[in-house]
């Protein structure tokens, strides 16, 4: 599904940082991959490269058989197939919940308004928030907003879903409702790449855990193996700090 080869990403502003160092990764169809690591380790940058919200300097990324770093690549088409959920939700505050969900369906997928609204209502029901369809995002709690954001991405019928720390901005009591939605999504067979600090989620849902530090993938493996007996010293230190 996603093939990443020798990816290098540098930031030059405010000063030069080698954010990703020779990253190689493969994500298969239907797989749930959780990326963990200390802050500043490059895990968010890695995720954002996958739908080219960041443009890496060297390497190659192939998503669904499309080389997204090629000049000929129509990135908008690829992005429509790759859902993205942000830490800060990024719902459109000037639109209602329903309009948030229908906008891209109508403009990108060229669905009719009726079709888009039916799809949106179905997904709102799925994330358990259908009664708020006419509310503005600011009237919702953080957990509700994040569930709307997930539904907004799902409206496009994506083949992959990317989650960039989806629960980090939430109050503790709202983390559960968002994780439940993500667990249900994983069970339905969706390909998912999740950057998170929720170790419980990783342990329960992930097919594979990727541990990143200092722009490199340090360790990779099943959650059972990773959480019980990490091979790398840095992974051990990280786990001892957060668990």
């Amino acid at each position, binding site marked *: 599904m996603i093939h990443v080869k020798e990816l290098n990403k540098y930031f030059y502003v405010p000063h030069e940082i080698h954010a990703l160092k020779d990253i190689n990764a493969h994500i298969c169809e239907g797989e749930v991959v959780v990326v963990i690591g200390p802050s500043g380790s490059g895990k968010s940058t890695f995720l954002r490269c996958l739908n080219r919200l960041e443009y890496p300097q060297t390497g190659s990324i192939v998503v669904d058989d499309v080389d997204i770093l090629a000049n000929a690549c129509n990135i908008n*088409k690829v992005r429509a197939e*790759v859902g993205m959920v942000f830490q800060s939700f*990024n719902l459109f505050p000037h639109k209602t919940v329903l309009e948030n969900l229908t*906008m*891209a369906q109508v403009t*990108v997928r060229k669905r009719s308004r009726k079709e888009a609204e039916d799809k949106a209502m179905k997904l709102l029901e799925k994330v358990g928030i259908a009664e708020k369809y006419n509310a503005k995002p600011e009237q919702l709690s953080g957990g509700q907003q994040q569930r709307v*954001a997930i539904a907004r991405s799902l409206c496009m019928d994506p083949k992959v879903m990317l989650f960039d720390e989806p629960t980090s901005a939430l109050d503790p009591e709202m983390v559960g409702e968002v994780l439940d939605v993500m667990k249900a999504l994983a069970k339905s067979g969706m390909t998912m790449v999740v950057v998170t600090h929720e170790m419980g989620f990783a342990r329960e849902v992930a097919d594979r855990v990727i541990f990143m530090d200092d722009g490199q993938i340090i360790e990779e493996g099943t959650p059972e193996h990773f959480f019980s007996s990490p091979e790398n010293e840095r992974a051990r230190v990280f786990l001892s700090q957060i668990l």
Partner: protein
Amino acid sequence: MVVFSGLDRPRGGAYHAFWGCLFFVMLFGGCWVMYQASKSVDYTWRWYRVPQYFYYTETVDVRSEIEGEVTDVATRDNTLLMTVQGSGETATYTLPDGKSLLDEGDFVSMGDVLGTYEKGSPGVLMTGLWITLKVSAMAIVLGIVIGLLTGLARISENPALRWSAITYIELIRGSPLLVQIFLWYFVMGTLINTILSSHGFPQVPSMWFGILSLALFSGAYIAEIVRAGIQSVHLGQMEAARSLGMDYAQAMRKVILPQAFRRILPPLAGQFISLIKDSSLLGVIAVRELTKATRETVSTSLQPFELWIVCAILYLVLTFTLSMFVQYLERKAI
């Protein structure tokens, strides 16, 4: 609207009553001082002469265009109809609410007065106000379009677009509007009108060059306001829109600009208000807007104080209405 409410101890009723009263005391005090000052000036105030510059009635003489006999004087629906029968030709004249000076059977020569009627016309200040309104409205609409496009070009990655926008903004903002109006009318205007006339097209009146120069002038300021508005929208909004597969233009139109628009309304209102006042410079290229009309009236009536005060009040009416309208938009947008 209070921005930071609730950060300090709540104020009681006495607080609002006292400072509210003080405001009105200052307001009336200010008015009283102005009134006393106006009385102390050695000047005869003749406010009663002002209304005629808004609306006046004149007596129109209707003259016969042929030689002959008045054959019919009839009144129908308050309109006087007079028919003159000449040798082989008949002419009928209509005088709304008119007064006949002749009777049936009277003989008239060509050019004789048949009757008179009263005709009301908008005064010179009224037409001036209308032209100011028209010029400002068109310049605002055109200025928004220019400003929006320039603002978008200003943040574009394309060097040709971005540098053009910067050059345009800096040139226009850095030079006097009066000089720009002169250049547009006397240089560009002459060129355009020469080309048009050599191809047999009608001339473009000076008002259009005035509108163009005003629109280009305010467009430069609006461009910077638009740019600031776009930049104030959180980067995550663009990322969310693009990550859903929208292209740059779609994301701009549907997500960024609607949010930016709400934030830039207050500075835009300020820009429109100065545009209305800047339109007073168009007098120099013979557009008879409000200021030019006032100046002309002053030179014939010798009532400078009344007329200039009235002129200021008329501008105030325009700008205050506009500012109320923008505040209404602001409330609606939230």
